[in-house]
């Protein structure tokens, strides 16, 4: 296999652009969460830094950097320092396969694909990396040497392993329908004039529902935020973390939210597909981000609406309801696939 320099440079430029765009989006998701929660709870939210509080993310970042970086005495130092890195790196590595948009023409440059790369195992790549993210949480819980952290870490690993099963099984139906694990191929398979090719409408509503619920549990968000249940565990696995290391956990959580939103968009809502994308390829970016932002808004909405599950309810729901439904969905999808071919 020869590696040509042009490909490397193009990929590098794309990675830099994608990395920064995603970082900015994550920062503003945090702000959006605070503002939307405020609106729902009938208060103002952060609106002092810049117009409408738009500079708040940068103020927060500055605060995280300037704060004293505490390392408690009783912690296992190496693992304590390793844990945030282990959480953050896989969360950001997956972004190289996000299919942001179709191939577009850039003047004076030529045809450019609006994704860093495409892998024929794209979806498996995403699942492989997200499944590594759990180690950061487990190690953080163990290395902190605190009962709250340990309980948070244990809960989290049990929860993530359980819901990862139904998460992976729920997408199999969509994969069967597109006949590929390549995210770009899956998106192309759903092209239709007015969103009528989406997998959501073509026999995957059950898969979509199971995916969405498992994804929320997998990212430890409300109503499945047991690992960091404030009233029981202070802050769960990141109780002992401060300053930038806490910020890394925080960022990884939002990066994971973004990832599952992207995968939901790609697998079920047709990715960049929408009206007039064939004529105006740049519109694909708009549709893509609109769909992803819808899912991010859904996360915030849920957080403002729902109470937390109890732990046994969470486990029963995952193993005794979601998993069988996901399996059933595979059977139904396979039957439909056999009948329609």
């Amino acid at each position: 296999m020869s590696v040509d320099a042009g490909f490397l440079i193009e990929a590098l430029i794309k990675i830099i652009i994608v990395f920064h765009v995603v970082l900015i989006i994550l920062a503003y998701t945090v702000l959006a969460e605070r503002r939307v929660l405020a609106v729902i709870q009938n208060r103002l939210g952060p609106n002092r830094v810049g117009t409408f509080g738009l500079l708040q993310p940068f103020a927060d970042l500055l605060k995280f950097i300037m704060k004293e970086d505490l390392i408690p005495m009783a912690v296992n130092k190496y693992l304590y320092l390793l844990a945030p890195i282990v959480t953050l790196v896989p969360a950001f590595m997956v972004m190289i396969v996000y299919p942001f948009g179709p191939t577009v023409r850039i003047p004076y440059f030529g045809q450019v694909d609006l994704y860093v790369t495409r892998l024929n195992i794209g979806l498996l790549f995403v699942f492989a990396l997200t499944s590594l993210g759990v180690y950061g949480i487990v190690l953080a819980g163990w290395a902190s040497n605190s009962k709250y952290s340990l309980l948070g870490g244990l809960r989290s690993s049990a929860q993530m392993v359980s819901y990862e099963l139904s998460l992976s099984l729920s997408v199999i139906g969509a994969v069967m329908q597109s006949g590929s694990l390549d995210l770009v191929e899956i998106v192309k398979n759903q092209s239709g004039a007015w969103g009528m090719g989406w997998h959501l409408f073509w026999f995957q509503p059950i898969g979509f529902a199971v995916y969405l619920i498992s994804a929320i549990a997998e990212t430890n968000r409300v109503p499945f935020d047991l690992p960091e249940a404030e009233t029981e565990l202070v802050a769960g696995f990141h109780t002992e973390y401060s300053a930038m290391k806490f910020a890394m956990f925080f960022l990884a959580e939002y990066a994971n939210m973004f990832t599952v939103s992207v995968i939901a968009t790609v697998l079920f809502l047709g990715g960049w597909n929408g009206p007039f994308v064939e004529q105006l390829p740049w519109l694909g970016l708009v549709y893509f981000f609109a769909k992803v932002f819808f899912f991010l808004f859904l996360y915030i909405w849920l957080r403002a609406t729902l109470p937390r599950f109890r732990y046994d309810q969470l486990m029963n729901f995952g193993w005794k309801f979601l998993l069988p439904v996901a399996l059933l969905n595979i059977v139904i999808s396979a039957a439909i696939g056999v009948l329609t071919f």
Partner: protein
Amino acid sequence: MEILFFLFGAIAVVAALNVILQRNPIYSAIGLIVTLCSLAGLFLTLSAQFIAAIQIIVYAGAIMVLFVFTIMLLNVRSEESKVDRQKFLRWLAVPLFLALLGEVYYVVRTVNNPPLQIPATGAAPPAEILGTVESIGREMFTSYLLPFEATSVLILMAIVGAMLLARREKEVDAAKRQAPTAEPEEETVAIGPGH
């Protein structure tokens, strides 16, 4: 590509040594995770993308999580006391090591002498389709159907066995709880569906 092979190979060997040399089980577990991840890298250089992804998802992402989980739950500090009791194992180690070395030598020799052909018969398919999901799936459900089904049955048996064991434990627990004089047991954490 060869640089990548040596890089991943070196990481795998160092991490594997780390697994057996560390006293603290959690460091050993981390070493094993690193080994598995670099093995996935090696699979990628052999254009076996599917195997690489499954390697990480199944071994690093699921099995090792349970290992780490168990180590944390039991809070095993370090394995020191039990070593003395198993001194006879040291005498067993030398012949086993020699046998393993012989095996490695034999494999390397047989691979080197006639150049290795990945599919035993016929022409080799191009590298692009060698390790894809399609080719592996087709092989698995045609040429290797019997081993595949046998493995499935084996795993099913393991699941049933695990359920049986978990169930029996639960009954014992219930019996213990009913005994009125039972002391409050040492702290246990209710985790997972089994408890």
